[in-house]
């Protein structure tokens, strides 16, 4: 029974992590790169010679994706350990 509770707690915590990661994912790509692009281009400071919205669409979003996956990996591995669900090496 104890194992079941650990599994269920792990599952709920991992859903929170996934929702958080995907929230950021949406914001940096479809948000900054598409929906709010005009605002970012016009009202916020540019990145070097590139308007911010354009830069987010062609560079910033991709960099963020890589960082998000690294963060996901870190959080999930820590969660596995916390609930004693990691693989024995």
């Amino acid at each position, binding site marked *: 029974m104890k194992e079941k509770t650990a599994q269920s707690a792990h599952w709920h915590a991992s859903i929170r992590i996934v929702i958080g990661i995907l929230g950021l*994912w949406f914001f940096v790509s479809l948000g900054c790169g598409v929906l709010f692009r005009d605002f970012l281009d016009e009202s916020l400071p540019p990145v070097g010679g590139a308007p911010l919205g354009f830069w987010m669409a*062609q560079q910033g979003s991709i960099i963020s994706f890589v960082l998000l996956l690294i963060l996901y990996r870190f959080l999930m*591995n820590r969660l596995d350990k916390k609930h004693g669900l990691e693989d024995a090496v």
Partner: protein
Amino acid sequence: MSQELWNYLLIGLSFAVYIGIALRSKVASTTEYYVASGGVSSFANGMATAAGWMSAATFISMAGGIAASGYNASRFLMGWTGGFVLLTTLIVPYLRKFGKFTVVDFLGDRFESTTARLVGVVCAIFISMTYIMGQMRGVGLVFARLFEIEVTTGVLIGSAIVFFYASIGGMKGITYTQVAQYIVMVFSYTIPAVFISLLLTGNVIPQLGLIGNYTQDGAEAAVPLLEKLNQLNTELGFARYTEGSLSQLDMFCITAALMCGTAGLPHVIVRFFTVKSVKAVRSSACWTLACIALIYLTAPALGAFARTNFMNEVNESAYTDLPQWFYNWEDRGLIGWVDKNQDGILQHQAGEVFEGRVPEFGTERGPHGERLLTNTLSENENEVYYDRDILVMANPEMAGLPKWVVALVMAGCVAAALSTAAGLLLVLSTSISHDLMKKIIKPNLTDKEEVHYARLASFVSLVIAAYFGINPPSAIVAKTVAFAFGLAASSFFPTILMGIFFKRVNKFGAIAGMVIGIGFTFSYITYFQFFANHSNYWFGISPEGIGFVGMILNFVITTIVSSLTPAPSENIQAMVEEIRVPNGAK
């Protein structure tokens, strides 16, 4: 040493490596054939997945596409990288824990239904087949340009090589070959970009060059590169480079459809079955995206550089004073010039030079030595036609880089096409031998027979792919990309996702959702691509983006139908709980 010699040397050398690797990793068992016994390190798997992911089309056409359409092309950049975030957080760790060979296995077992399996097999075959046809064409074209042979011969040579190492080495052979191919690709993409960035902006790192100043007119006259590009574009009547011409809704839908489609492509998902554990899936996904990002972050820089170079060197130049690369590509029929105002000078402006898609060259030469076109000319003043695909290949020549760099780029193009074709071929043959033969038609197949069927299936698929590579239904190949991603987004992605995250979803919901999602997407694309001669899209959503709507439809239908029909059995619910637990993956 001549250019031809360099080409032969570098491509020959890379082939020797690929074949050598395949021979070393000869396989016997089905597990090894399909998933390389799970014994591939995360980093190696990351590079291999990245190589398989970046097709000839991505490698050759993406930078050209960015050069031609500026901001609009961001949909590919974000779509094809952002999909990996969905894939990693929602799909692959759970499917790896499930621990079978194919994506269709999951659908069949999770929804306890041969119908679901069958729908899955049909989708997998269709998606992989449309994809692989384009690859074989790509291989053929590169070979043809390189060695001055017929495209037909090029396709045949390419097919023979792919068949050889895919069927001998299985997944393990493919994986290690793809690692080698990734290394070739990354060098051949970044080295020219670094040189060109130095020339145009004085910056060693192309990504900094993109946001840096254009310094070729001297340090005092330095302006940001993108501003320079916007100026050039505006002067010549094109849309501003940093602004798009697509509507925001369409841009949103296309990007989202590409993202979700990426997360549902069977040949990508199956790559993550080759690592040891769920933990290894996570790190493998990080490496994959990092490897892809390296090339995807370079592409926008390369695109902007190529565009600037091309306009600077070509527009308002006399034909007789052009750099050598222009004549080379004109000879191969990929650049054309029509002297509409008869002044001997090239005017490059917005608009199509002629009616129709492809240039048709006559045998005669014009008064300045240019090749004459026989197409019907358009009314506008644009005189210069160029095939976008040449930008990556011609870039090193435009920048006057050494011959070995040009040869390296060629080797990279071939590597990109071969690596994707081999991975697809494996998924295709597995779908037929495992999902169709073993699981549906002939359940008592032995392991050994199954591998035989897999090899036979890959041979047959390759023959079909080669046939279409030689005789492309020309208008169709370009349009099939919309199909592959739209179908994956509206079928595999939502169905697998709900299969993992919602225990209550049952076979009736899944089948109804998949059939209606695909049916809708398929009909919409087919109608607008092949039957309608107008483009009054619903709400302005183009066929490329309709997969997103199909996906929402799938989610809604699956939820409604599942809630009206009985819950899945205890066994299935226990299985779903089991795959959510990260440890103990076999």
